[in-house]
């Protein structure tokens, strides 16, 4: 005899179609043109950074770099839903989110240029640095959220990672404890359909990534990740629940990686331009602009002046980065521990003095 004991449903939310036309009523915040204009400006700024970063890498002045091209709505939609006191734990592709949080362009250039000072953010002092080992920051987010909950603070942790990250045990173990202890942590998946050369459908047989939340007993949902209004809305709703003690959530943002995986990658080895092309018609910057234009909230002049100011800002930051001398080599040692142990002090002395072995 079989009896059903549990049922589940996963929903997908979108507010704008690919051309920026509303699919129905918008959330209240989106009726405020200034809000969406702010999102748009942030996405454009992130894209300007992206272009410059690639250009610097191509000319040997930056290290390997992971472009966020076409995925800016995930970062901006997420970060804009956070409060300053919340903590962001980003993967290596979420420059848009980091910039919104107040990480400076120069800091980003420094980090991707191979300088640790790029992770010493002057702005969001509690935000985590970029996480390279995929999904390993989800457990940190659980810990950050637990600290907030223990202290009774109305704050939350937000971790972002890719579709590939959802295959790691780290993701699952952390999601499970967020569900179990109702921790104020929101996990945002930038499902850009690719993990380097591996397609989303080759990561998991799960029909959605959002349904992975069911395994952890907490809410999971899909949103159109090229729709900055939908992303912001979903993250804001999740954060409101988290702050009021109702626990965390998993949010899958459906988007597309328009560029190579990183500057070290050549996507033409594993995907055709024909596959990529239609996604250009759905990308978030274009779409948001079309929306704003249709609302008479954005003009050609606005656009020109935005592009100009972004370019100038990015250019200045790049120059400031390039003008920053590397640290003194002693820095290799100085932050290993709070105080330099004797054993390491000897090594430092040997390294700093030319005679050292």
């Amino acid at each position: 005899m079989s009896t059903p004991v549990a049922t589940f449903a996963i929903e997908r939310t979108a507010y704008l179609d690919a051309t920026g036309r509303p699919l129905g009523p918008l959330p209240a915040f989106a009726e405020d043109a200034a809000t969406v204009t702010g999102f748009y400006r942030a996405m454009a700024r992130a894209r300007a950074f992206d272009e410059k970063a690639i250009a610097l890498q191509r000319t040997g002045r930056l290290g390997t770099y992971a472009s966020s091209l076409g995925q800016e709505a995930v970062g901006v939609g997420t970060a804009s839903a956070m409060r300053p006191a919340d903590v962001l734990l980003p993967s290596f592709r979420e420059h848009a989110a980091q910039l919104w949080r107040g990480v400076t362009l120069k800091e980003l250039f420094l980090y991707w240029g191979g300088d640790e000072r790029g992770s010493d953010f002057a702005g969001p002092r509690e935000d985590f640095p970029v996480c390279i080992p995929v999904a390993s920051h989800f457990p940190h987010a659980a810990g950050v959220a637990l600290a907030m909950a223990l202290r009774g603070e109305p704050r939350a942790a937000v971790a972002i990672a890719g579709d590939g990250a959802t295959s790691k045990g780290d993701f699952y173990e952390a999601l499970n404890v967020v569900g179990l202890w109702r921790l104020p942590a929101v996990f945002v998946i930038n499902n850009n359909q690719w993990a380097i050369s591996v397609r989303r459908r080759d990561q998991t047989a799960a029909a959605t990534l959002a349904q992975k939340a069911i395994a952890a007993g907490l809410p999971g949902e899909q949103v159109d990740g090229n729709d900055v209004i939908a992303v912001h809305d979903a993250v804001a709703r999740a954060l409101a629940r988290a702050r009021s003690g109702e626990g965390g959530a998993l949010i899958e943002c459906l988007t597309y990686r328009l560029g190579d995986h990183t500057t070290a990658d050549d996507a033409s080895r594993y995907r055709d331009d024909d596959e990529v092309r239609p996604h250009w018609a759905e990308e978030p910057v274009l779409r948001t602009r079309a929306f704003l234009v249709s609302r008479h909230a954005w003009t050609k002049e606005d656009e020109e002046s935005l592009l100009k100011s972004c370019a100038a800002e990015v250019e200045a930051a790049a120059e400031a980065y390039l003008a920053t001398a590397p640290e003194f080599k002693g820095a290799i040692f100085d932050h290993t521990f709070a105080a330099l142990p004797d054993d390491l002090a000897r090594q430092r002395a040997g390294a700093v003095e030319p005679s050292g072995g």
Partner: protein
Amino acid sequence: MADLTLVEAVRAALGRAMTDDERVVIFGEDVGIDGGVFRATDGLYQRFGAKRVRDTPLSELLIAGMAVGLAAQGMRPVAEIQFMGFIYPTIDQLVNHASRLRTRTRGRLSCPMVLRAPFGGGVHAPEHHSESTEAMLAHVPGLRVVIPSSPRRAYGLLLAAIRDPDPVVFFEPTRLYRALKEPVADDGAGVQLDRCFVLREGKNATVVTWGAAVRECLATADTLAKDGIEVEVIDVATLKPLDSETILASVRKTGRCVVVHEAARTGGFGAEIAARVAEDALDALVAPVRRVTGYDTVMPLPRLESHYMPSTDRIRAAVGELMAYG
């Protein structure tokens, strides 16, 4: 001043740390109402409540990763891994995060966490419950690796580890948990990290060791003393960062060095100590360095376990051999 076993001293230090500092939180598998499978956290759940003494799901990776998040937020997480044999899923978090959060962010964030785990053989435990792989972690830059060998040092070193501003892995020798009692003052005094302890002075040979093997080394020194051989016994206590000076000063005095550990020989931490002697006290050596260790084999199940352990016989033979030199 109560007479405490090592595990009782650990418990006293944990209780003291929680009393002194609200930021201290304890978590791990079965650390709550059960008080830990070795009772290291016995009574803490009842004293400090379910918020600060937490049973986690069965997820070691998570335990370590959550500790990183808590520590970065200014808490003082003290997490337990039930046995060293189950610590491997935490290594990614230790190597790629805990040990480097400070330097990656040039000091903006830091990771004052403690990860405790019982370890070592000789207690006829099930498979995977008797290994000693401290050397793997002692190789990780940015991590402290601390191993107590007496109730008093367990109390003081654990308090110091919890107060330390950087991550500490704290390995407790299962075999010593209840093997002896000594008076331990629960006075909140830490014992300095990063220092070796000379447990017994001697002029003929230096025996360097840590953890449960300290007992066999002291016993061997007793025996050898009857034959007129004075052995200096050093408890390394903090493997990383290593206090070379104490070891080298002793070897310069005795001219003979035996390193003793339960872990497999090749790549064990004894190699590091032998290397330092070969680098910095070579001229003082009158005899080759010797290592008395576990073998480069998997730790056997209990029936053959005793053949694997560095016994007093093996230690005595090694010292005896060196006495023939010089």
